[in-house]
């Protein structure tokens, strides 16, 4: 399963239950991010118990994108399934600065910054 969103690409690998997001995701507003929300929720439905979001190759994410991911985390928290694991990198400041917010939305979200 694959989705192109602006200058970014999302891929879901069912074998390791991982969504990788690469490139620069800076869509104009929440409405444009709807397709990203649908993709993430589809991946969460397909994953059995744990879903990994690998963002180590995501250079940029704007505030509308952070809001979209935050809403996905709240929706997953509500269902209590699957558990979420987020992989990030300290190479990109936005990840070092903002990924920690996701843990404040749901304290069971695991965040690993490489």
């Amino acid at each position, binding site marked *: 399963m694959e989705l192109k969103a602006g200058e970014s690409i999302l891929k879901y690998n069912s074998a390791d239950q991982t969504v990788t997001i690469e490139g620069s995701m800076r869509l104009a507003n*929440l409405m444009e991010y709807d397709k990203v929300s649908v993709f993430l929720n589809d991946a969460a439905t397909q994953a059995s118990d744990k879903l990994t979001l690998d963002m180590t190759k995501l250079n940029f994410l*704007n505030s509308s994108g952070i*809001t979209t991911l935050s809403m996905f985390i709240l929706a997953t928290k509500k269902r209590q399934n699957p558990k979420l694991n987020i992989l990030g990198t300290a190479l990109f400041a936005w990840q070092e600065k903002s990924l920690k917010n996701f843990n404040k939305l749901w304290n069971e979200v695991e965040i690993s910054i490489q």
Partner: protein
Amino acid sequence: MMQEIILGDYDLIPDTIPSEGELHLRVKPIDMVTYWRRCGAVANFIANFYRNPQDEIYHLNENLISTTFNELIENAAKYSTKRDSDIDISLKLYNTILKMEVENICSQKHMEAFQKSMEKIIDSDNDELDNFYLNKIEAKHAGDKDSGIGLLMLKKDYSLQLSAKITPIEGEVYRVSVHAYYNMSVE
């Protein structure tokens, strides 16, 4: 006519102090909203302009500078009242401090929403900003499609010092100027 409004420490480094380097750009909102990727392209260009990996005094965090300008430019593009008005963008360097500025023209409705949000962001400490963020996300989860979290994120996550000036121009049209100060020596 409404008087000029200052939010936060707007003249932390006044324009009368000569900078050690400056970059000024002017773009049109119509260009930004027609091809949205241009907001990011301009932000990336500015962040790359002062890049110098060999510099021993400071290491400019390109990702942080690009993210900051992208948020400020996206807001200016979204809320500019006339598509043929100007968005003025500048970056000034003072030793280890970067002064980032974006100006645009907006309507009274957007000016009032901006003022309310900016006052809350400037007056809040980190715990209050965390709650502000959580409340905004909860509200959006419940269907609210309104104001974003860009400025909130710049203060809360990036510890940037934010300030703004609102100047009435004519009728119900206002110039909004946002300053974001980034101290590279704190990184």
